[in-house]
């Protein structure tokens, strides 16, 4: 028999050793060991093990409890008293638990949200070794950023050659695709064309098909399960042919499991990259070597053996080295796991989040939790008088202060855990609603995710200790002598505790008021954005994106067809829509400095300015009647004129990517050609020409307000005649609202959390008001018998609370002012903060707190003094 066989499992013994005081543990542990050895001899290994486990599982809790509370009997007593207190003081228990439940529910939601945000892209097996290539183009600033997530196609091979650390690299080309299977036609916007290595780098498992070979052949395509169901229902998609863009037949070589929601890119289809050779035809070979084609996204994966920090230090690398032509562009790398919370660079596949939002919401969660904890502290110290006798008796019976502190801490922990149970239930209940609110699919695995579980326990323990610490120290400080003398609590400690309580109330209201003010200002700004004159008319304008190449070149007939219909007021075409002109072109004028900036550009039809009601400041409009206007006439906006510095711009030489120089024929008033986050940048407007260089990307159609659905149906019919793509349209004003979605979401969430914070604070105030007015019931009785009126007593009692809320509000003013001042800096065009939000917040906070307090106070003031004084 081997030696260690005769010894009990080591883990159990180790735990015992940790729990017991060192000088004592030996005898118990050795005792258990001795008995274990006997069991082993008598009944064999298995039953000995069972015996051991059974014993140890019963032993450990007893030891812990014994260690913590002296004995199990006392613990039972504490529990009994705590539960009895909950039952006896129903209102306070209700307020305490409700406050904690609401606070914890909010925090759990925010925690789930943060966990979800942080978990982005971490499900890839190689997540830590995957990087995205970014390119900085210092001369080309787009949407205020000069970093791009797109790179030229030949970069992949060049990097592979230069950096032995790179194991795999894959390019992604993202396009739209018109997918057709048996006349089931949809325009799919999440169509990726990728290198075969894509499936090696990322962990996107296939349900059918071989990931090694699936993307090797040209015109191979993979699709997600969701798409397989959409197009094939019950059919087996493997090997079927999908027609794309009415031209190419792709064969399905596999089905992917659906892409998890916490990915920074999502796709529905994966086409093979070498399909691009036949698709691009003559251009194909050049495209793969074209250092100017900033079109693909490149991702790389390092060998598991390579040193990531050393690799990191090699970047940025200048692109010049590969390109062979002078350029300032630089190559950067970005770790995959940083992408989602790293904010946006240009040409993101999907809008990313920002680590700032994570911090911001964590702060709110903490504040709300704090407000809830303050409630508990307040109510239990204010209600201390009721526990005074208990403390006295316990002390006389020999309880040490240490015991009492543990008792009261235990009570607050009990509250916290009761609250946790309720909020778990609430979270389960409200999770779908919350998920749709933040537009993310959250899940809530409480028990099968050790991280979530332990953080939940962590939150409750934190809440329990935080809210229980002050009451525990305060309550345990009573001296039995004083209690018996009838002095209850010494003047000094009473003052100290009420001072502390007041501070808490002030803090609560400061926090709530800050939140209210912020909410009001955010909504003000949103309102401002929605109603600001943009400089063009946006009402009743339907915009239709054009995908079909033929229609882009030959839009005239359709435009004519549409304008014949009486419900359609006007039709125009352009390459961009007036609210988001984001692309720029190099321009030239006399005296342009070497490093002069590119201008945003709008390619339009002659009636564009009239259509949108954009006003000319000087000069004339573009016109069809004047033949030279097609290639040689430019209209600038005021920003452009100011930048160039012309006194009298009309007639000056100007050129934008054309063989012949043209001249400036007019200047338009500045209109908001980007979101209000940014200043209006220099813009040039000119007509479409025959060069085929400029694409008609949008139809704008102004319709009459009558029978909108009829008009839309007619437009659909006309469009389908000209384009094989499914008809899709947007109302211009809705599209403009989309620019501010993030802010709108923020405002909405802020509103909800503000409501919660105020609710909890008022709940606490209600509790305190009822406690103090209850304690002063005799004073009120005497005052009333001496002739005080109900109103004077109400005012007397309310005054104190109002003082506290007022201080809270005043503290809130500067904090919220600076916070919002920072936030508003995100917008180039913003509201003045002014005094209205502050007044509004004062009104809301004061009315709510006054209302809450008054319910209690009024009840106390109205009470018949005979009742309150009788038994004396």
């Amino acid at each position, binding site marked *: 028999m081997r030696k260690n066989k005769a010894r009990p499992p080591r883990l159990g013994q180790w735990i015992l050793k940790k729990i017991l005081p060192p000088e004592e543990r030996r*005898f*118990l542990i050795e*005792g258990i060991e001795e008995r274990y050895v006997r069991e082993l001899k008598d009944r064999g290994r298995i039953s000995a093990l069972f015996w051991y486990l059974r014993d140890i599982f*019963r*032993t450990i809790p007893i*030891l812990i409890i014994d260690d913590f509370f002296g004995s199990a009997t006392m613990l039972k007593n504490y529990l009994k008293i705590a539960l009895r207190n909950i039952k006896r003081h129903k209102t306070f228990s209700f307020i305490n638990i409700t406050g904690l439940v609401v606070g914890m529910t909010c925090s759990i939601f925010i925690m789930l949200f943060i966990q979800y945000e942080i978990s982005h892209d971490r499900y890839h097996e190689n997540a830590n070794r995957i990087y995205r290539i970014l390119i900085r183009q210092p001369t080309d600033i787009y949407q205020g950023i000069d970093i791009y997530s797109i790179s030229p196609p030949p970069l992949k091979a060049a990097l592979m050659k230069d950096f032995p650390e790179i194991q795999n690299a894959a390019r992604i080309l993202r396009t739209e695709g018109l997918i057709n299977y048996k006349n089931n036609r949809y325009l799919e916007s999440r169509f990726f064309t990728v290198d075969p290595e894509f499936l090696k780098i990322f962990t996107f498992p296939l349900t059918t098909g071989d990931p090694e070979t699936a993307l090797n052949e040209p015109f191979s395509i993979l699709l997600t399960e969701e798409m397989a169901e959409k197009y094939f229902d019950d059919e087996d998609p493997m090997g079927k042919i999908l027609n794309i863009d009415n031209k190419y037949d792709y064969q399905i070589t596999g089905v992917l499991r659906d892409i998890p929601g916490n990915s920074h890119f999502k796709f529905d289809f994966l086409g093979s990259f070498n399909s691009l050779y036949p698709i691009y035809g003559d251009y194909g070979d050049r495209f793969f070597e074209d250092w100017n084609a900033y079109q693909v996204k490149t991702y790389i994966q390092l060998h598991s053996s390579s040193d990531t920090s050393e690799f990191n230090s090699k970047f940025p690398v200048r692109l010049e080295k590969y390109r062979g032509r002078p350029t300032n562009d630089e190559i950067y790398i970005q770790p995959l796991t940083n992408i989602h919370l790293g904010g946006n660079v240009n040409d993101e596949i999907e809008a990313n989040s920002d680590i700032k939002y994570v911090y911001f919401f964590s702060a709110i969660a903490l504040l709300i939790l704090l407000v809830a904890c303050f409630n508990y502290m307040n109510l239990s110290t204010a209600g201390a008088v009721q526990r005074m006798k208990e403390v006295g008796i316990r002390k006389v019976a020999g309880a040490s202060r240490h015991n009492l502190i543990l008792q009261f801490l235990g009570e607050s922990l009990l509250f916290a855990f009761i609250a946790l149970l309720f909020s778990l239930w609430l979270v389960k209940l409200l999770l779908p609603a919350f998920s749709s609110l933040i537009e993310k699919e959250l899940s809530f695995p409480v028990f099968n995710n050790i991280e979530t579980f332990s953080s939940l326990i962590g939150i409750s323990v934190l809440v329990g200790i935080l809210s229980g610490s002050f009451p525990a120290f305060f309550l345990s400080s009573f001296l039995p002598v004083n209690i018996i003398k009838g002095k209850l609590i010494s003047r000094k400690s009473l003052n100290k505790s009420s001072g502390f309580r007041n501070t808490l109330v002030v803090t609560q209201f400061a926090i709530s008021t800050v939140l209210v003010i912020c909410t009001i200002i955010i909504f003000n700004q949103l309102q401002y954005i929605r109603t600001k004159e943009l400089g063009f008319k946006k009402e009743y304008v339907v915009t239709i994106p054009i995908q079909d190449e033929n229609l882009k070149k030959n839009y005239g007939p359709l435009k004519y067809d549409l304008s014949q219909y009486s419900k359609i007021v006007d039709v125009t075409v352009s390459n961009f829509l007036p609210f988001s002109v984001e692309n720029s072109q190099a321009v030239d004028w006399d005296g342009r400095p070497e490093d002069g900036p590119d201008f945003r550009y709008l390619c339009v039809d002659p009636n564009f300015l009239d259509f949108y009601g954009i006003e000319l400041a000087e000069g004339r409009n573009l016109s069809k009647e004047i033949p030279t206007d097609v290639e040689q006439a430019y209209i600038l906006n005021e920003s452009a004129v100011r930048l160039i510095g012309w006194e009298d711009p009309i007639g000056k030489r100007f050129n934008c990517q054309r063989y012949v120089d043209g001249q400036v024929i007019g200047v338009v008033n500045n209109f908001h050609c980007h979101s209000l986050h940014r200043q209006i940048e220099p813009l040039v407007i000119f007509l479409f020409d025959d060069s085929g260089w400029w694409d008609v990307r949008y139809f704008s159609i102004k319709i009459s307000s009558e029978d909108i659905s009829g008009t839309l149906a007619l437009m659909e019919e006309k469009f389908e005649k000209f384009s094989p793509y499914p008809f899709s349209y947007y109302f211009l004003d809705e599209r403009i609202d989309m620019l501010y979605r993030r802010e709108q979401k923020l405002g909405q969430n802020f509103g909800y959390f503000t409501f919660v914070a105020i609710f909890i604070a008022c709940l606490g105030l209600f509790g305190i008001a009822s406690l103090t007015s209850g304690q002063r019931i005799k004073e009120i009785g005497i005052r009333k018998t001496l002739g005080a009126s109900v109103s004077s007593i109400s005012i007397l009692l309310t005054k104190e609370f109002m003082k506290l809320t007022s201080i809270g509000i005043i503290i809130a003013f500067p904090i919220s002012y600076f916070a919002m001042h920072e936030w508003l800096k995100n917008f180039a065009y913003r509201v003045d903060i002014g005094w209205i939000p502050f007044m509004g917040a004062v009104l809301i906070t004061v009315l709510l707190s006054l209302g809450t307090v008054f319910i209690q106070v009024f009840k106390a003031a109205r009470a018949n003094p005979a009742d309150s004084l009788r038994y004396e």
Partner: protein
Amino acid sequence: MRVLTKLEESVLLSVLKLKDDAYIVSIKDQLERFTSKNMSFGALYVALNRLIKYRYLESHIGESSSLRGGRAKKYYKLTKNGVLALKDIRQLQNLMWKGFENLVKELLEG
């Protein structure tokens, strides 16, 4: 005077019966023989400590013997107080059981 619980009573009795050989394992064995209930080592350990705190028991560390790999045991012994407490409870129980036979007889016959 504090009345002993049933558990404390049986622990004290076990210690008494074991004379010089009362240490945690033997006490547990004894208890298992007395009662069919199987208590854990932890519960026994806590009870023993409590009894020491009430001064019903005292303990001393025995000499190490080669039999247990050179490890010493902690032996328990009743104090005067412990004996008194047992006497008390015996008295109390006698008082309570007094007339039991007659009462049962009455109940069955009547």
